[in-house]
């Protein structure tokens, strides 16, 4: 059975090397400072006791005031799992560091986060839209993407380079 780290256990493991990075620990997850995310992820992957070599999923949620990015981490070597979260404040330019350098599997998922939610992943080598086309107005999965404006949509349908 995969052993899931509780929030407190995971926070203790992270605090050993990154004392000020943990913002809060929830029941199953830990929220860390977004600037520290990439360094923490390198540590989580390379530390031999933790060895979170497998990134199952990285996605984001729109909580209106802020965006929360969730990383579901697994260790194939030790068969344990943990959940890491980071907050991106505000709606105008939310960003988190990209973890593509740590796990290549984050590549397409971070592009999807940018495309559908507008959360930039700083350091991603190829942050292009993936589901929608370049030039599409807005980010569809956001909570304020509700009004379907026909004129804007018609303008966006004009052919662009692809």
């Amino acid at each position: 059975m995969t052993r899931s780290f509780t929030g407190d256990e995971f926070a203790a493991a992270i605090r050993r090397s990154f004392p000020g990075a943990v913002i809060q620990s929830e029941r199953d997850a830990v929220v860390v400072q977004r600037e520290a995310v990439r360094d923490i992820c390198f540590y989580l992957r390379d530390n031999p006791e933790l060895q979170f070599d497998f990134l199952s999923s990285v996605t984001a949620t729109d909580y209106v005031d802020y965006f929360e990015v969730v990383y579901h981490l697994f260790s194939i070597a030790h068969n344990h799992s943990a959940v890491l979260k980071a907050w991106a404040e505000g709606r105008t330019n939310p960003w988190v560091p990209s973890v593509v350098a740590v796990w290549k599997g984050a590549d397409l998922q971070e592009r999807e986060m940018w495309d559908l939610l507008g959360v930039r992943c700083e350091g991603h080598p190829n942050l292009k839209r993936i589901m929608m086309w370049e030039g599409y107005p807005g980010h569809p999965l956001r909570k304020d993407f509700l009004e379907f404006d026909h004129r804007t949509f018609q303008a966006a349908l004009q052919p662009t380079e692809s």
Partner: protein
Amino acid sequence: MVQPSPFVVNMGPQHPSTHGVLRLRLVLDGESVLDIEAVLGYLHSSKEKLQETHTYLQTIPVTDRMDYLSSMTNNLGCALAIEKLAGIPVPDRATYIRVIMSELQRIASHCAALGFFFNDMGAWHSPLMYFLQQREKVLDIFEMVCGARLTYNYIRPGGVSQDLPPEFYPVVTKFLDELPRTLDEMEQYLWDNEIVRSRTVNIGVLPRELAINSSVTGPVLRGSGVKWDIRKADPYCFFDRFDFNVPVGEKGDCFDRFMVRLYELRESIKILRQAMEQLPPGPWRSEVPVIFRPQAGDAYGHIESPRGELGYYLVSDGSVSPWRFHVRAPSFINLTALREMVIGHKLADVAVIVGSLDVVMGEVDR
């Protein structure tokens, strides 16, 4: 003297070998592939946004249509995530029925995957028709149980939608008795086939470390030598009560992935026989209101679908609809490894490698 220069060729989105609307932008030097880029989104229908307007029970039919070649496992993953979020119990009979449906679905899905893999290779429709003949028997069983052949909407939060009919047991037992002989025949004429070997061995090699780092899962990961199957590593639905093996490849080439899928078919037969024996009587679903409000919070439920780790990340705000409904689609993330597998090979190998990845565009694009 004519100097060739690399040129860009577009493969898809309408192409018989791309398993749906997958567009591949290839940079070719003659026939060698220098670069490949997958352009996605041709089947994007904003299912994740749509789910935010549905009640939790209404989210199940939409999940059918994501990985449309294995709807039972889609329903199962979603139901498990919702049950985790809302704390809904599931009776034992329902759990065993879920295991039976999920393994029958694995047989049907792998038959389709293998059949089309050989179709892409140029064996045209002979092996495809033999595999689809077995898949048809499974689809007939599903039609007997829930009335549908492709999108079942059968596994719901709390159990399954209806009980198994009385003719289920003899029909499935007969199917399980006949299937191994067909698989033996397919293996005999495909395993040592010189053309199959030359087109799949050492083609599309994915090394073990790269496979783990690229988050690939399912037969693609196991073909590269990593023994990671969620049914064994993080058992759900009583999978720890069954005795079965997890086939693992060695090199990570297309042949290993084909071999893993073929042997998984045999392991599914083993699991099915045990599940049918252990199936207890009792209720097939627990009392769940049609519209319910889970507590605010989030849950991640994952299962081993025929294509890999299918995960559902659900966030609830205490209302009747999910606040966020994210699907960790295995085919989508398996495409991360496509570039490393294809570069250096020839144009003809691209179709074989994409076929061995077994992508279903419904879950890639959602």
